[in-house]
């Protein structure tokens, strides 16, 4: 079997990390792979979805596939003619579970536009376009850069900082229940206003989380991952959500626990053996009648990675 013309490997992300609503996110060692298997005439696209979402028309239809849409949008923003292509999406990141599956498609689409157009856009421009398409930066920035990032977006421009990677003995347990939470529903669940005390609470926790991460004081994460702006509201959107974090917070090795993204996945940072925390999370979902599985991940320090065949191989096929 021939190697694809372009292959992009893009990590999962856990955004809205603890107190860092819409600003803090980390890349994780679970990857979707997007392969361009051939170039086609302009305007002609096809998508083959393997794994997660292979039955979803939004993914298998090239017109609605987020990677293709992001590719076309980036070409439009940069004023370059989009070459048609055949895309193979190898998806293992669960859909609509709060692990940044759609962000991997945005990152892949924008990067494809950059690679196939020969534009050579700088990192800051790639991230600006990715954030513009996604609408918020806390998934796409760590997804592309890797590591844990803090980012701020003013609808036009972006500023971000990448933090040092997690130490190797620190595991990220992601317990994924078999229920979906749509990002738009999760947004609707949030209040328009929050009490001043809750805002102050989150300011302190978010600052502590960043400071702890930057200085490697991992024992402070339990406080830094507390939140009053989104988790209390979103935990009501899925079975077991209101009790599950309290069940594991005090288990041995558990440094912090949070809803990943908009949920319903729960992420716990665990030092040492992760089995007890992971099985407790999944048993709780079972008690509420929901099947689940878990991943034991590490921080992905390198972010998105790609390989590309030589330009001589890039001939259009009908």
């Amino acid at each position, binding site marked *: 079997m021939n190697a694809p013309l372009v292959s992009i490997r893009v990590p999962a992300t856990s955004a809205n990390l603890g107190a860092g609503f819409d600003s803090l996110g980390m890349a994780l060692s679970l990857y979707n*792979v997007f392969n361009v298997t051939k170039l086609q005439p302009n305007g002609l696209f096809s998508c083959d979805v393997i794994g997660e979402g292979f039955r979803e028309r939004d993914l298998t239809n090239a017109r609605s596939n987020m990677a293709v849409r992001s590719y076309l949008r980036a070409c439009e923003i940069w004023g370059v003619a989009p070459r048609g292509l055949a895309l*193979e999406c*190898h998806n293992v990141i669960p859909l609509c579970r709060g692990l940044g599956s759609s962000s991997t498609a945005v990152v892949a689409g924008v990067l494809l536009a950059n690679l196939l157009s020969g534009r050579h856009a700088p990192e800051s421009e790639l991230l600006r376009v990715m954030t513009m398409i996604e609408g918020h930066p806390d998934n796409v920035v760590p997804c592309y850069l890797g590591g844990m990032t803090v980012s701020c977006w003013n609808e036009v421009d972006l500023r971000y900082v990448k933090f040092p990677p997690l130490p190797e003995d620190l595991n990220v347990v992601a317990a994924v229940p078999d229920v979906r939470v749509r990002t738009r529903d999760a947004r609707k669940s949030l209040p328009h206003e929050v009490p001043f005390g809750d805002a102050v609470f989150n300011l302190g926790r978010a600052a502590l989380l960043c400071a702890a991460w930057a200085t490697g004081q991992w024992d402070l994460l339990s406080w830094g991952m507390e939140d009053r702006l989104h988790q209390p509201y979103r935990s009501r959107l899925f079975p077991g959500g209101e009790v599950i974090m309290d069940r594991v917070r005090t288990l041995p090795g558990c440094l912090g626990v949070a809803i990943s993204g908009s949920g319903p996945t729960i992420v716990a940072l665990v030092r040492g053996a*992760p089995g007890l925390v992971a099985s407790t999370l*999944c048993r709780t979902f*079972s008690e509420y009648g929901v099947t689940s599985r*878990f991943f034991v991940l590490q921080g992905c320090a390198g972010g998105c990675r790609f390989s590309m065949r030589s330009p001589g191989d890039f001939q259009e096929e009908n």
Partner: protein
Amino acid sequence: MKEVVIVETNATGTKNVVDDVGIDRAAARIVLLGVPDVPGVAANVFSALAEHRIGVEMIVQNNMRGGMTDIGFLVKKERLDDAIVVCRKSATDIEAQGVSFNTEVARVSVCGKNLTENPEIPAKMFSTLASVGVNIEMIVSNTLDITCVVSETDADRAIRALQEAFS
């Protein structure tokens, strides 16, 4: 802890080949996701598990598509923490896309004699599970037993239905 339920059998018809119906909640399921379809990857994973004396059962490899495949198997729950370390390292070595784990599973089995010569037995087992809305996650069969991995949330319903069907 393995629980085995003995079901009385009749002397005639299809029932006479099934001796018992059992359930086992002691295993965890591991799936290596997006494994490159090249020689040596299965050897890498299972050699590493063997080096750590971690026993595996019910190894299943999916059909390859686009040059990648998934490999699933079971380990004893008591070895899960060791298996997590080994599988994660192997996944990195072979450039798999990830590894998922599931402790909330159970194995339900029908056991008997000459099951492969009685095709109505697996048909009846799968129909019975379907009739009570139980999804089968893995299947393995041989002449002495047919085993299905199901979710823990479905396990009690599955075993009750099988006891009734094969009694």
